[in-house]
């Protein structure tokens, strides 16, 4: 077992830090339906943490709890060592949690550059008067943030479509722009909701490479939901497995792969 406070070293030799976020006995009900039942797990600094499970297992609900779109019926999310009070999604975003969406939620009418710039909104705080007059602090701020954004655009290799309205881009590129927007916030935790859904093999490989690079280059902690088991096992350091709203496995990819409950959930079990 791992030491709760000190972190651990991954198979490929990366040092993972202490607990950054912890779900403590989370339960989520919609009326009479229990979407998530008493789940606890932690996310550690610098790791790539995956949440997997069959359709309807409650993975997306869990991500929505982390990002503040849902409030848990019971239990609490602990963030940086303290319980997080119920918050609106924009407040969670301002605390350093950025996310992407399963069905891509981009600002279709705006250019790629503008979309990524919105990721910097939490980093900008010039007064409204300064902004209205496009003067002083607002101007300096805009320039400084623009630099950071260009860096991310370069990093994700989307320079050539910087000025293209997002609505015109193909699906795979849209996913990448969404990742860029989330990265632009320089998040403490990056949540990815099925980053590879609907992609072809080549696009999946690109996306995997970017996720690893982001983690490597910026040290960003990443929590992701994914359907494609192969991809998950290759990418992640530790995996939580959910089924019917319950946690049925938690550990390194190898541990999870050999877990009988997980095998049953994925392959079905004879009754």
């Amino acid at each position, binding site marked *: 077992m791992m030491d709760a406070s000190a972190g651990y070293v991954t198979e490929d030799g990366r040092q993972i830090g202490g607990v950054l976020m912890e779900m403590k006995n989370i339960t989520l009900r919609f009326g009479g339906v229990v979407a998530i039942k008493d789940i606890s797990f932690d996310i550690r600094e610098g790791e790539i943490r995956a949440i997997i499970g069959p359709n309807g297992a409650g993975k997306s609900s869990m991500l929505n709890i982390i990002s503040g779109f849902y409030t848990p019926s019971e239990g609490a999310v602990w963030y940086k060592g303290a319980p997080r009070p119920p918050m609106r999604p924009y407040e969670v975003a301002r605390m350093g949690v950025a996310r992407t969406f399963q069905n891509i939620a*981009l*600002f279709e009418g705006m250019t790629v550059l503008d979309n990524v710039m919105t990721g910097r*909104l939490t980093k900008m705080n010039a007064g409204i008067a300064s902004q209205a007059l496009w003067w002083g602090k607002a101007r300096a701020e805009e320039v400084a943030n623009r630099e950071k954004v260009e860096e991310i655009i370069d990093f994700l290799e989307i320079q050539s479509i910087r000025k293209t309205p997002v609505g015109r881009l193909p699906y795979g590129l849209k996913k990448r722009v969404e990742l860029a927007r989330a990265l632009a916030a320089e998040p403490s935790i990056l949540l990815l909701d099925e980053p590879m859904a609907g992609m072809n093999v080549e696009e999946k490989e690109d996306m995997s490479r970017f996720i690893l690079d982001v983690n490597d280059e910026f040290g960003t902690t990443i929590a992701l939901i994914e359907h494609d088991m192969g991809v998950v096992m290759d990418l992640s350091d530790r995996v939580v497995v959910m089924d019917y709203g319950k946690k049925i496995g938690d550990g390194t990819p190898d541990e999870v792969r050999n877990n009988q409950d997980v095998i049953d959930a994925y392959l079905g079990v004879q009754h």
Partner: protein
Amino acid sequence: MDFLNSILVKPFADMFEAPDFLMQVLWEGLVSGILYALIALGFVLIFRSSRIFNFAQGIMVVFAALTLVGFHQMGVPAWISVVLSLGVMFVLAVSIERIVLRPLVGQPDIILFMATIGITLFLIGFGELIFGGENKMMITEELGIPTGEFIFEPFGGFLLLEQKDVTAVAVAAILVVALLMFLNKTRMGRAIRALGDDHQAALSVGISLQTIWVLVWFIAGIIALVTGIAWGARAGVSFALEVIAYKALPVLMLGGLESITGAIIGGLMIGLLEKLFEIYWGQPLLGGNTETWFAFVLALFVLLFRPQGLFGERIIERV
């Protein structure tokens, strides 16, 4: 033959013969066009950030103008009245967000549209209760708006520009440029545009729905006040002013609901064309008063060929 001549030849001959008069007509058209554009701008701003078609924009113009005049009648100096009116428009924006919009988040657009009709009816009743229903004079001179005339003599003719109209055009132009800068260049502007595109995504990058809605309704309130002053200076302040807001509808049909540039060009086009049509075709051939319907017919005609308006986002249906 005579008929064709009077439609196709004579109007243009008239224009050519008296270019100074033509310029006068164009100027009048430009002034009303700018005011239509301003009202349309209020619509576009709210539509872009919330997909709400704000039926109340017209009554907000009346309400803002009445508030301004009302404060002045209570003995408050003109410029302080302006500041206080802006304060009232801010309170109005906050109240609308709190009481009307917030409980309706996520409802279908048509529900929110109905809610703005409710706001309209409320403001009519509330305004009459406080300020009374009678016509009022705009406090043009007290605000330091010049009331004289510029007289030019182009082509040896005669052209008269009222100074208050010149002021209105100048102020409107400054307001429009400032708004465009604000929307395209600043953090808040980007947040406004973002919110209109996708609420969920906007929340995920830390944009607060509430803050932006208040901001947008407040800006619409500022636009309403400026429009109210400019229009009130020409025609007085009364509840009848609300009707000019309906002129913004053909402007929006032409310009498209999403486009700020569209609202401006649409407004100017309608202002100019309806005035030209009235003077050169309407009055000699149709007995005048064509300005009440010309804009709507023009808009219908454009919609036949471009259902999304001249500048609107193209409607693409994927199958």
